């Protein structure tokens, strides 16, 4: 009951806030569009890649395999912690009019922001997927193979087992994307109602001393992250029960 009252008052506060600041709704939707697209594309690219790298049978000399594996993992782990501002800067330099991809006309657009976040998110989904796949009991794969499954079918059997870990990959990626600010500010240009997101507007609001607005935007950001994580966590728990 108290939970219900709390949610109702929160909802009313947000409704009032959006009525007073209709632009904030646009900004929230753009934030979701940018981070959502980046995480969607990042998962589609990163999860199969991570699964491939995690499941691959490395042929060749044992020491060579170990070294290659070590270097590969280290690279992925490093890229999982890519500084967003550096990525944003590189994307900006590539997409600006005088840059090599300037002809696309994508600098200071939501697409430029999606590209930035995609680059940040892909290593995260790959890395977490590798760990998730690695955590599955080896016996499952061997059992599938012994029952006459092809390599690919056996891989899917492992992925099915690793579902919770794959969901974790999506959750972590989403968290990184929606809270990101430095990279999208450089690549997107922080143009009001075109490439401004909740995080960039928080920075702007603090810059002009509107701490209250900044904090409210922060609460909205947190609420969105919470809502999306509830859905993903429900899925995760349901999978765990199976």
């Amino acid at each position, binding site marked *: 009951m108290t939970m219900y009252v709390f949610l109702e008052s929160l909802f009313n506060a947000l409704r009032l806030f959006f009525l007073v600041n209709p632009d904030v709704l646009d900004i929230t939707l753009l934030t979701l569009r940018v981070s959502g697209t980046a995480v969607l*594309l990042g998962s*589609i690219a990163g999860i199969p890649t991570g699964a491939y790298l995690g499941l691959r049978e490395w042929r060749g000399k044992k020491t060579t395999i170990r070294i290659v594996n070590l270097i590969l993992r280290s690279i992925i782990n490093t890229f999982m912690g890519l500084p967003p501002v550096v990525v944003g800067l590189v994307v900006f330099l590539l997409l600006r009019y005088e840059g090599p991809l300037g002809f696309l006309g994508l*600098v200071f*657009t939501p*697409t430029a922001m999606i590209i930035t976040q995609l680059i940040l998110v892909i290593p995260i989904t790959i890395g977490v997927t590798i760990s998730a796949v690695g955590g599955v009991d080896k016996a499952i794969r061997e059992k599938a193979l012994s029952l006459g499954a092809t390599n690919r079918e056996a891989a*899917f059997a492992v992925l099915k087992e690793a579902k919770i870990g794959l969901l974790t990959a999506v959750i972590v990626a989403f968290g990184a994307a929606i809270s990101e600010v430095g990279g999208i500010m450089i690549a997107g240009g922080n143009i009001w109602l075109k490439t401004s997101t909740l995080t960039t507007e928080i920075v702007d609001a603090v810059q002009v001393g509107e*701490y209250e607005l900044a904090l409210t935007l922060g609460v909205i950001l947190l609420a969105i992250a919470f809502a999306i994580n509830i859905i993903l966590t429900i899925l995760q728990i349901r999978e765990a029960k199976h």
Partner: protein
Amino acid sequence: MRRLSKTQLVIVLLVFVFVTVAIVGEYFLSRSRRLVLSTTTSTWDSGLLGYLLPIYEQRYDVKVDVLHVGTGQALQIAQGGDADLVLVHSKELELNFTSQGYGVHRIGVMYNDFIIIGPPSDLAGIRGLTNATEAFRRIKTAGDLGNVIFVSRADKSGTNLLELKIWSLLGLTPKNTTYSWYWEAKTGMGNVLRICNEKLGYALTDRATWLSFKNELPNLKVLVQNDSVLFNPYSVILVNPDRYPHRNHQDAVKFVKFLISVEGQTLIQDFKKEGETLFYPLARDVPKAVELGFENQQEELVWYDSHT
């Protein structure tokens, strides 16, 4: 297994279509009538552009995208061909920009003023001075004695460049490393004011940012103002249409015509914060414009007025 492959194929196709639509859509959006204005944080953060632009956008059916960054970056973006015009405030950088052929038709639009703020205890003893250079000299003296600190933007913004210019009048080029009382914050005006409020420091600030923040800064007061060196003129410069033929020259000219029209200048004067005027019209006050460094103001006025 085969069915799964089909699903995968559908997903891949969907994603492909999605991305293509997004990119193509963006491309066409970028071709619709848009004006990209590269400007300083002060014109945006003060709310001036938020007040002026809707009037222009509605009248001319052009959407104005505002990139609000430091003066140095604003000019850099325009130089890279990613903006149609700039609205900035740093004479030397502006003249560099035009003399190298990146920009044309520089004209003074408006001005505001800078102030020196600091703690009411004022251990440097600058309160009430109308000579910024003398105030800086006293801050240095008190700083050398370890009594006060000065916080610099140190971000190559117009404000920072003016500050360095005043120091250079005293023959000084202060750095973090040379004076312990000189703090290079490398951040925006608002952050510098907050640092001063916490550490009881002195700083040079524009009046607009000060007024926005005043209520959050109980430990600071305006100590020095009204020196002519503290007047801060803003100019607009079009990017050179010969050099950047892909840019929207036509709408950029229209926008400047709007800014310097009697109506635009009146709108600028009527824009107030906490009851105080933030920007004073300059475009049609030719003697004042010449005094503030726009030697060609009359010619440029004629050029814009006669341009249709």
